[in-house]
């Protein structure tokens, strides 16, 4: 299958006040784990407490991708950090609800509302 390579791109806010963001591109499945872990390491290297995962450009997440996200949330919790997500389609928001992932992260409709909501936690 000619799938687009999954990418996770860390991005610091220009003013270094808001939470760091990782933009996800492509399909989230078990192959996404290394890239996501690298992006997490890089984004959190400045000691931020919250990481925002932006799913705007993700149109497919399967069960193995859910497992990768669960793994990342587990790690963040061990480190006393939080994961927030934005840009989920309605379908994947439903899946986050069914799996109860939603109980362990903040879910925002888009990046703007996420950064507005998460800024206090990150400063």
């Amino acid at each position: 299958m000619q799938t687009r390579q999954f990418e996770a791109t860390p991005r610091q806010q220009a003013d270094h006040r808001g939470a760091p963001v990782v933009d996800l591109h492509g399909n989230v499945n078990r192959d996404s784990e290394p890239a996501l872990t690298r992006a997490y390491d890089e984004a959190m290297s400045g000691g931020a407490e919250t990481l925002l995962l932006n799913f705007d450009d993700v149109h497919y997440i399967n069960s193995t991708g859910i497992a990768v996200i669960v793994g990342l949330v587990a790690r963040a919790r061990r480190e006393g950090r939080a994961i927030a997500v934005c840009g989920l389609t309605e379908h994947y928001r439903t899946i986050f609800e069914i799996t109860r992932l939603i109980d362990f992260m903040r879910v925002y409709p888009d990046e703007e509302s996420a950064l507005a909501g998460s800024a206090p936690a990150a400063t």
Partner: protein
Amino acid sequence: MTARLSKQTFRRAIRRRKADDITSTISEPEAAPRVAETPSIDIAPNDPLIAYFSSASGAVEIDRLELDSPALRELRAAGVSLVAPLVSQGELIGLLNLGPRLSEQEYSADDRRLLNNLAAQAAPAVRVAQLVQQQEAEAREHERIEQELRVAQLIQQQFLPKAIPNLPGWQIAAHYQPAREVGGDFYDVIELPGGLLGIVVGDVTDKGVPAALVMASTHSFLRADAPRLISPAAVLERANDLLCPSIPEQMFVTCLYAVLDPTSGRLQFANAGHNLPYVRSADGMRELRATGMPLGLMPGMRYEEKETVLEPDEIMLLYSDGVVEGHNAEGEMFGFPRMAAAMLGDVNGRQLIDRLLTTFSRFSGPGHEQEDDITLVALHRSATERTALAPRFEHEQPASNGAGAVLADFTVASEEGNEMIAMQRVTEAIGALDLAPAVVEKLRTAVSEATMNAIEHGNQNRAELPVQIRVLNREGELAVQITDQGGDMEIPETEDPDIDLKLAGLQTPRGWGLFLIEHMVDEMRRSSDGQQHTVELIVYLKGRVDADAAV
């Protein structure tokens, strides 16, 4: 006629002005308002008046303007003397036009201030109203287009063969997949006198309902004359002559018509400008060439008639443009070489079509919107067939029995990632059912997960083992059956996933597959015959109880 401004609603905004209303309100409040309908005025987009009004700082006295403007002349002719432009975000969206005061005095500074305030407040309100109207019009247009797409799909499906004849020693496999904006593809298999079989593949230029209607006529002409004339060239000539008077200009039909004698393998064919059929034989590929103009261009055309013999184990493939001319995200065309390559190897007709579709799907990539209808018909002469029995036409079950209509039946190889192909093909197969988008999304996830299980657990990632996927439209329910070769093997995923345990490290983060499937469909049924293991995903359809009455 003058061109409209880009906002279709502009004209309406201008027409709404009631110059005399405003005049009377401002200057003669005690007089009964005289409401005179002034003619609506269209302002051409290149009229200098637009630029002038857009940047005007307030009400403009028309008589003092010196502009070479047709609209200005119209305003004057309509008796307008003062204009307050309605400007919203720098864009002129309408005019408040006033005639002369009834008292025949000049407008005072107070009048103008009032008018300017009114214009400033009215402009955003008018803009909002225009946007709402525009959006409503777009929504109606969208609904109309969707409705037309459904009609075109319905027509198209009416004329697909309900059943493919079952010929001993031959295998006929067909695949038809309409694009969202239905093209004019069609195919047909016609039983002819003397045990002969007619096979048609055609493509109407253009899309939507007009193409579907031309397709329907062509289909009927061919059906009517094929049993009488037999000769493929004669049948195409006749269809062309019948089609010419009625076909809309700019439209035509490409069509390949072949007549098979199943006992000898003799195949006569004629071609009205359609793609050349390929035959895969022991020593490679050959094309079946016959020349002829597309149907519907000109009456009195003659068509070349050729013949060949399909030998045991040869496969002939008839096809429309959908695959060969399909593009990937990089704009590259699929093309004949890829198509020919996919035909080689030891496969039968059904497998050939599945392989082609898989190859095409990998080529075009995920999320690809199919550009054109895809039609593939494969005619395979069995390798072992030597007997010259008179053929019996045994029909596959028609679509309306209890087993339900088969919307798709295909296989994917057990390779990681092929669940995406399964997901895509099931989505395409249920496209005409008009399911709610959320239901489709859920079914997609369930199909992907179940196929992944079949590939990994049932077939142990052994690429040579197929996963078979069948989509059935049964009474009141849609069923997707996903079958692997894993026999009785249980999927090792019995423990319910618990996110608290997972986050605490007491359960593996994985193990969501079955859990997801169960939550994505109305029902999941599993069965096994010791060799094959089938998961059936069920989605209840609307009107499930009285499905019989609805049919």
